[in-house]
């Protein structure tokens, strides 16, 4: 008998929970309306969530080249719309479809496929979980989180510089629970198409090329320190081809931690951080400028750089949160191209997760080769709402 040997009423409860969605995008309306017409269909109707984000932002760096430091006119932007469709396929597997409509142009934007994958949850030897499709790979901690779940508005510098919009690729993954007593330890290994790195911090779009596969893996352990506090530690690796024309390889290593102290239902403190180590061989930089040796001939270099972020987020009075983040990151291709920054953020969630408002101030100082360092201040006000079922938060 498969697990999740749910009794009938629990299964009914699950299917009824899926009816929570009351408003859906037009493309999905037919599905929901038809499901509501007949009771039988509701049992196969998936969970549908719609989460848009809007942003008002300003910064004082736009006229620095003219020698002027003044805040730009605050710009109201549509940031992104995320539509999640999720359900069990059968007693053994579930499927997730995440569609995104990126901003800022709400009308010209195209709905894209952020993630599309199936996960086999049970029935495999050694209690393996298998996932296949397009998904955010389990590399580090933040890469697995969608931006609407971050406590801050903008991505840490190390994430945007080394992973672009995230390590999100076609692939297949297997995960195994390692027997370490009462400590939860999971090993996940991914075989990926390798297009994510090339599309973001690699050299070229490989969509027309033969795939040059990438691999990632993560080992994570979860420690219960007390009734109120828990600690998760993770180590990840990721390797692939960043320059498909010269077949140049990169290696990423990543250490992550998350500590959470929750003394009551209304108060919690999260401390989280990651350090990413990068090394790659390259004959040219990200702008296709060849690396030259002392005699001016083309030469291959090994570039080792990295970056980190750490943040603290304090939830208080249930509906408020306040936090700060420190960033530091080099460029994947240049040790003398680096940036550091601080961000202070405030969150207000008046009715659980149905509505969120985040205010962030950030200062970022960038240092690029051959130019003076540049300091930019930015202020962002993000609003989001969440329509549809709200799953419990994973640690």
């Amino acid at each position, binding site marked *: 008998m498969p697990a999740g040997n749910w009794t009938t009423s629990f299964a009914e409860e699950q299917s009824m929970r899926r009816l929570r969605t009351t408003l859906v995008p037009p493309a999905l309306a037919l599905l929901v309306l038809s499901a509501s017409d007949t009771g039988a269909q509701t049992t196969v109707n998936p969970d549908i969530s719609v989460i848009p984000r809007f942003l008002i932002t300003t910064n004082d760096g736009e006229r620095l080249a003219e020698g002027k430091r003044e805040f730009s006119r605050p710009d109201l932007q549509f940031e992104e719309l995320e539509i999640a469709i999720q359900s069990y396929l059968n007693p053994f597997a579930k499927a997730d479809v995440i569609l995104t409509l990126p901003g800022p142009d709400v009308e010209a934007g195209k709905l894209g496929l952020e993630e599309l994958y199936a996960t086999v949850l049970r029935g495999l030897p050694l209690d393996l979980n298998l996932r296949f499709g397009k998904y955010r790979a389990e590399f580090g901690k933040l890469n697995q989180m969608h931006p609407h779940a971050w406590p801050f508005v903008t991505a840490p510098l190390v994430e945007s510089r080394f992973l672009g919009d995230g390590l999100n690729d076609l692939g297949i993954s297997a995960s195994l629970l390692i027997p370490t007593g009462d400590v939860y330890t999971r090993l996940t290994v991914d075989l990926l198409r390798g297009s994510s790195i090339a599309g973001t911090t690699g050299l070229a779009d490989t969509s027309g090329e033969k795939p040059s596969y990438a691999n990632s893996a993560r080992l994570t352990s979860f420690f*219960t320190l007390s009734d109120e506090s828990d600690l998760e530690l993770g180590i990840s690796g990721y390797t692939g081809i960043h320059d498909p024309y010269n077949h140049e390889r990169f290696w990423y290593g990543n250490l992550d931690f998350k500590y959470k102290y929750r003394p009551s239902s209304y108060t919690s403190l999260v401390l989280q951080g990651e350090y990413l180590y990068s090394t790659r061989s390259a004959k040219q930089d990200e702008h296709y400028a060849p690396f030259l040796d002392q005699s001016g001939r083309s030469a291959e270099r090994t570039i080792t750089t990295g970056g980190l972020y750490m943040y603290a987020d304090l939830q208080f009075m249930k509906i408020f949160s306040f936090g700060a983040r420190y960033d530091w990151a080099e460029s994947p291709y240049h040790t003398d191209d680096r940036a550091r920054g601080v961000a202070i953020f405030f969150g207000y969630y008046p009715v659980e997760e149905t509505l969120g408002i985040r205010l962030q101030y950030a200062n970022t100082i960038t240092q690029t080769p051959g130019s003076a360092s540049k300091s930019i201040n930015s202020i962002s006000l993000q609003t989001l709402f969440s329509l549809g079922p709200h799953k419990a938060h994973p640690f």
Partner: protein
Amino acid sequence: MKLLIGIILLCLPTAAFSNVKVITTLPELADLTRRIAADKATVDYIVRGDQNPHFVEVKPSYMMKLKSANIFLTIGMELEMWAPQIVDGSRNSSLDVVDLSRTIQKLEVPSRVDASQGDVHRFGNPHYWLDPRNIRPMAEEIIAALVKVSPQDEPLFRANAEAYLQQLDLKIAEWEKIMKPFAGKKVISFHKSWSYFANWLGLEIAGEVEPKPGIPPSPSHTAEIIQLVRSGGIKAILVEPFYDLSPPDQIARATAAKVLVLPTSIGGVDQAKDYISMMEYNITTLAAALK
């Protein structure tokens, strides 16, 4: 050879005294299971008595609890929306997930639900364990689940359950006697947790501190409740230990009502050591306030 003998000796005690591993969502389910299974089961739970069972973070440590369990007992009726994620994460292919609400006479089952009504449960109010008369059907479900794993122990499970239920019946009669003078009295509750409790004792829940289930109190709603308490001569505001006391305290300051922090789970207050002592505490505290 010595190694082989050693392994066999290590395995023998396990084989002789192997029992059922049961994980429950709430501590009162663990308490009831322990009464029924005695030493034939190891029993643990997930939600502490001072935690809100509606909102539980999905921790890998909970998945580890379920990984080697035989039975997972839940209240059901959407109380534990987080439970499926823990079950999936446990990778336990033989876990029997049991919904104890199956035969309960459910209250407040809505005909239509949407988010404008707050966090309304589609299958009705799930706080049925606060009516002690519901413990008997819950015990039947637990016995059935235990018997599936350990059929040879059914007579023991039934005998243990009956002994406990008889003890509980005596307490129910005692509690009903204590509360009989207060039948028809109005109380205010923070959340809709006390419907079964009030229904059992003939109390009337005149209003909730929350304007709608799960929605934080607003100043205008608090003012309405203050008016309601004053006009109805209401003496008690029932609040679970995990809710913010500021709004009920504000109501109490403006009226003659008293805020009563009453546990809905074992461990919610120090006096709630088990189900009977939890209910005893609730009954005696409420009776004292209503006098």
